[in-house]
């Protein structure tokens, strides 16, 4: 029947550093190492060709203090207040101090930042930021950042790419992370990459929800890998709902629209955000006011409007209206061309003529692999950066444009830290043990292809998972529904072994990869649901309706840490937040009343 033998091959190579993930964070790390340590060999392993990574879809911009009237302290405050004090303040200080430099570095590498008439890169307003400090390249900032990084990385022959290699396990020996095992997707063969250090830069896990802005690749692989090797996931209950996405598909309509002055109105044409403590109603954009409020507040306001029946009905569910008409065709064409294209393509709306129907969708995983300020995880030799990491700057709610800056600042940091670690490591003695581990792991992954037919369909399980998450761990949460979601997820993870695949071949078997991904995604989902159930307060993006409607600093001004042992539900622990200089206070937006709207 077959023209080829089915025996899985296992190739093995050695590198100084293995980077998993070819998005903004992974590429930043790779370039930093190649520049600073040209003698080190770097393997950049990615399940998609790097320029397909989801950094490409970021639209609005990247934060970096630039103007004389702005200051690092202001950026620090915006971030910590925006994250409702659940931020590691030392990390935030480190972060804000390096954003500008990273933006300039990108500029030197050719990033086509939008410019002012004076020839300097322009900045725009963004939600929750007290002044304009968001650098942008029209509304395709992530696209331009990713392509600039990818193309710049081509300068360095020391960066060896493993495009379309799917990492399914870490190699750990002697308590240190020593490499990864991957599937060469095109051939289905296995490849062990041994290394002195591993950097995880695999992005978020938005695919745990049904309606999200995320690419299909964002299945939380890196988080799942770390979790299985005993590394805790931090603050996973904090999942960002982006307030302006297309109903149904969840396609992102950038916050940059509101930065440029767009309005959000309900079915009566009323700018409803003024009813949720974000007023007064202003015509021109005013920082931290109305549409320039933070994402958690805006998504929550939508929920209330929906409860009150003031949303617009679309074939794909309720929506509010994002109005850009008053900006004029010229400005839309110059600043928001991509949004214009997306609205026309996906909902048939020309934003210069009619409002875009929008609703909140899951957008960003604010928690992640717990790291310290140097991006080191609890597992020596394993570093994490970008969305898959929780270095501690986002807290309970990330401000828009902080994540693109984060992947540059901490991507670079991860690269340099990992390089230092790898250079210190003795390389001898472990190769045999690692090879055995790789063989064992490869055999386990290959078992998927040998399972009997007639089992569950993969997609069925995945749909049940995303539905459970959407229902139980949404914008507003209560104990009953969260508990039910936790239970469903535990059941689903038991059923994982009952899946059978239609595709038993090795060559580009994406069903096989999806099955392994689903294992990771389910573990991440379980951590999110359990961490949410255990946080008995409301803070940032985690809002409860069941009596825990208020922030509770006494009990919960603490990071959650989720760990997973085989056959058991996730364990949730808590750890103190590093508060250096800004004590907890009231989180205030808009110029009006500070009282928060609570149901």
């Amino acid at each position: 029947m077959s023209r080829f033998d089915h025996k899985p091959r296992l190739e093995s190579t050695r590198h100084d550093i293995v980077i998993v993930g070819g998005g903004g964070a992974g590429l930043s790390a790779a370039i930093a190492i190649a520049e600073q340590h040209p003698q080190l060999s770097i393997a950049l392993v990615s399940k998609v060709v790097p320029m397909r990574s989801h950094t490409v879809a970021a639209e609005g911009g990247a934060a970096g203090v630039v103007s004389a009237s702005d200051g690092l302290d202001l950026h620090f405050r915006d971030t910590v207040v925006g994250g409702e004090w659940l931020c590691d303040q030392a990390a935030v200080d480190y972060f804000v101090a390096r954003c500008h430099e990273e933006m300039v570095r990108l500029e030197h590498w050719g990033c086509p930042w939008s410019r002012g008439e004076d020839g300097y890169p322009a900045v725009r307003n963004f939600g929750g930021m007290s002044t304009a400090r968001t650098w942008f390249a029209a509304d395709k900032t992530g696209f331009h950042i990713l392509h600039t990084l990818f193309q710049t990385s081509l300068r360095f022959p020391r960066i060896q790419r493993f495009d379309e290699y799917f990492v399914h396990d870490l190699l750990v020996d002697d308590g240190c992370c020593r490499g990864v095992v991957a599937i060469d997707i095109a051939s289905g063969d296995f490849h062990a990459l041994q290394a002195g250090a591993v950097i995880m830069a695999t992005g978020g896990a938005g695919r745990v929800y049904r309606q999200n802005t995320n690419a299909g690749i964002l299945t939380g692989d890196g988080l799942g890998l770390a979790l299985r090797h005993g590394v805790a996931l931090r603050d996973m209950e904090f999942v960002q709902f982006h307030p302006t996405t297309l109903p149904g598909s969840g396609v992102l309509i950038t916050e940059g629209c509101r930065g440029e002055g767009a309005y959000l109105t309900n079915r009566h044409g009323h700018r409803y955000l003024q009813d949720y403590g974000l007023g007064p109603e202003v015509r021109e954009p005013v920082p931290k006011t109305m549409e320039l409020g933070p994402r958690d507040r805006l998504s929550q306001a939508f929920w209330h409007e929906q409860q009150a029946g003031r949303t617009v009905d679309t074939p794909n569910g309720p929506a509010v209206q994002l109005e850009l008409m008053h900006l004029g065709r010229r400005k839309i064409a110059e600043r928001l061309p991509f949004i214009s294209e997306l609205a026309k393509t996906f909902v048939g709306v020309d934003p210069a003529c009619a409002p875009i129907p929008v609703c909140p969708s899951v957008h960003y995983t604010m928690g992640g692999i717990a790291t310290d300020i140097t991006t080191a995880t609890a597992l020596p030799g394993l570093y994490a950066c970008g969305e898959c990491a929780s270095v501690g700057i986002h807290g309970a709610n990330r401000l828009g444009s902080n994540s693109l800056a984060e992947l540059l600042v901490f991507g670079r940091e991860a690269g340099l830290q990992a390089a230092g670690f790898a250079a210190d490591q003795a390389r001898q003695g472990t190769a045999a043990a690692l090879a055995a581990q790789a063989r064992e792991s490869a055999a386990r992954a290959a078992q998927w292809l040998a399972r009997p037919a007639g089992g569950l369909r993969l997609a069925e399980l995945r749909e049940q998972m995303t539905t459970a998450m959407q229902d139980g761990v949404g914008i507003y949460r209560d104990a009953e529904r969260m508990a039910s979601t936790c239970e469903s997820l535990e059941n689903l993870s038991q059923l994982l072994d009952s899946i059978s695949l239609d595709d038993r071949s090795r060559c580009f078997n994406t069903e096989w990869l999806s099955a392994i991904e689903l294992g990771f995604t389910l573990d991440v989902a379980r951590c999110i649901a359990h961490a949410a159930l255990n946080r008995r307060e409301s803070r940032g993006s985690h809002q409860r309706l069941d009596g825990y409607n208020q922030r509770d600093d006494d009990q919960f001004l603490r990071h959650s840490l989720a760990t997973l042992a085989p056959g058991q539900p996730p364990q949730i622990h808590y750890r103190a937040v590093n508060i250096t200089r800004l004590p907890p206070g009231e989180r205030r937006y808009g110029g009006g009343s500070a009282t928060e709207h609570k149901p």
Partner: protein
Amino acid sequence: MKAHYQRPMGRWYLRPFYLFVYTLRELTAVFVLLYALILLSGLAALAAGPEAWASYRQALAHPLSIGLHGLILVAALYNSITWFMVAPKAMPALFIGTRPLPGLLITLAHIVVFVIVSVALLVLAGAG
């Protein structure tokens, strides 16, 4: 291990239609060549003397020749239009401020010049 399938090119120049459109454009070269040969032989006849020139003119007046020139004219017109359509892609980019000059405008400018030149030539010949 990997056995990739390489699709043969086949007769891509006939199908799909948009590639046939390109093929027709390239095919006009045959008619340009024919016309160039006709002109060259005319020049030769001219050099050879009045008799040769007269028989050349006689040959041109043959209905077959007129028919052929009709075909050449159709091909030439097609060549002109396609040439003007790709002209914006072959010349340096022009901008008005930050906006690129629309290619259609450049094509139209070429067509305007073409019409003026053609009319001028025809009038000159008619009057000559």
